[in-house]
């Protein structure tokens, strides 16, 4: 038996969520007194022996799999790997691909799956996993009743931990090599930190009055190397692209630092950001509900406070 982590890649590069899955798998393997292994599907330029740094003993690398992510095909490949490895717990990153693959594999193996997982399982009485529910407004303990268990992590919920080590890499060839899907186009928001992976997110709302005022928000994000986000009405009004819309009906995030500028803090907005470790709110209305959910706040006009904060951060970082 082993704990097997699925390593999600983008254009051959390992995603941050995958490092979280590897770290989680190794911790769990330690508790279960077994080894942690990893599954990499498709070509990659990464040195896979390096996964040993995250505690991984063995890497199954399915080299001839198509690089187009096809959940139907990848499920067959992953199922073969699960039986080759004799894996009993499968750990997936909470990435888009992880969320497509895990449920398919769960159905194929008739193995219980829990998504949004935030902690190691409780093993005293079966196998119960704590997960985030109600869009971050609550947690729930879910027991997995089957022999093989699938865990999909919440993004940014499990810390990446690395040390020394080198993994054995096993090259695997698969017969499931042709996909019914055709990848027509890939676009990357290049150079920018993906919103769900970002450690720091700078977000702004209707208080910015219009898209022409986003310059000061972007400058603040730049000094912090932060990703940008916005409230729903801002995306609906096309002031910002909809892939920046966070909240209950947009993207859910859990950065270390979330800075909310001119956002009132409606319950639907909070639902997507309340797992952030530290929340800073800048709002001119002292009664804005967001202050109740914040760790730090400035009651003031964003158009004055934000440039000052950017300047102070530049000074702090020795950039000016």
């Amino acid at each position, binding site marked *: 038996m082993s704990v097997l982590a699925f390593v999600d890649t983008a254009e051959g590069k390992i995603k941050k969520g995958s490092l979280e899955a590897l770290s989680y798998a190794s911790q769990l393997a330690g508790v279960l007194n077994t080894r942690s292994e990893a599954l990499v599907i498709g070509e990659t330029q990464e040195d896979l022996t390096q996964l040993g740094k995250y505690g991984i003993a063995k890497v199954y690398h399915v080299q001839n799999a198509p690089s187009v992510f096809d959940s139907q095909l990848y499920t067959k490949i992953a199922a073969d790997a699960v039986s080759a490895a004799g894996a009993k717990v499968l750990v997936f990153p909470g990435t888009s691909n992880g969320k497509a693959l895990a449920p398919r594999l769960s159905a194929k193996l008739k193995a219980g*799956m829990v998504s949004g997982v935030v902690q190691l399982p409780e093993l005293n009485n079966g196998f119960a996993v704590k997960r985030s529910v109600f869009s971050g407004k609550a947690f729930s303990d879910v027991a997995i009743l089957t022999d093989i268990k699938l865990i999909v992590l919440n993004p940014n919920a499990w810390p990446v931990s690395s040390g020394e080590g080198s993994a054995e890499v096993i090259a695997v060839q698969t017969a499931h090599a042709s996909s019914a899907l055709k990848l027509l186009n890939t676009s990357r928001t290049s150079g920018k930190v993906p919103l769900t992976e970002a450690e720091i997110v700078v977000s702004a709302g209707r208080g910015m009055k219009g898209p022409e005022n986003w310059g000061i928000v972007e400058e603040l994000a730049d000094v912090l190397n932060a990703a940008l986000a916005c409230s729903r009405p801002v995306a609906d009004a096309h002031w910002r692209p909809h892939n920046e819309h966070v909240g209950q009906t947009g993207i859910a995030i859990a950065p270390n630092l979330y800075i909310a500028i001119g956002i009132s803090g409606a319950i639907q907005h909070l639902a997507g950001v309340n797992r952030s470790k530290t929340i800073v709110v800048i709002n001119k209305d002292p009664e804005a509900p967001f202050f109740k959910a914040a760790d730090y706040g400035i009651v003031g006009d964003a158009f004055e406070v934000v440039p000052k904060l950017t300047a102070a951060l530049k000074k702090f970082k020795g950039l000016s």
Partner: protein
Amino acid sequence: MKILVCISRTPDTTTKIAFTENNTKFDTSGVQWIINPYDEWYALVRAIELKEADPSVVIHLITVGGQDTEAIIRKALALGGDEAIRVNAESHDSFFIASQIAAVARNGGYDLIFTGKETIDYNGAAVGGMVAELLDWPYINQATRFELKGNTAQITREMEGGAEEYEAPLPLVVSCQKGMAEQRIPNMKGIMSARTKPLKVIEPAAADVLTAVSRFDLPPPKAGVKLVAPDQVDELVRLLHEEAKVI
């Protein structure tokens, strides 16, 4: 072209989340129910748009739930869709639900199944993928654009740090998110006609339950906000560095 749209009932987004029976059950007293926004705004509305472009498209809605979910199905039918199916069972296990949908889809002659990206209560993001696997169909999740091109579909899918555009054969399962379509308000004609549209109730197929919720918890309350004066931004930087340790 026959489309099956999966509809789930969720508590209204402003619901105060509370639990009963020793934190083992979600407290539904006083809860206003809505159609899961991802199912309604994106999956259902996109299906309706496809029918508007080609009136020969047939839309069926499916929900797995008790009789009290019928109000939500009628609401969905008021937006559009030709008929609805309710599988008479209550479960929070994604595999059980997916098995019911797959059982209906298997002999239903569908070309497409739309789901929302996830439900806003259990956030499992699991049913679409499970249905696809049970039917052995391709699956594209988190779609932001869907176009039919004859017997294939073109789909844009947004993910961490980028987007991918696929061409996929039918039949196909797609989970939908923002970008796919725009929220609509049902009109009077829709509401009237929804009352008479067929709503078929069927009993559940035998299926395994793979997971069980054992308890719920609320997150610990925040300690309270520390306010910093607008002319003290250096102090905020210091707090973020020394106290919160996030910069």
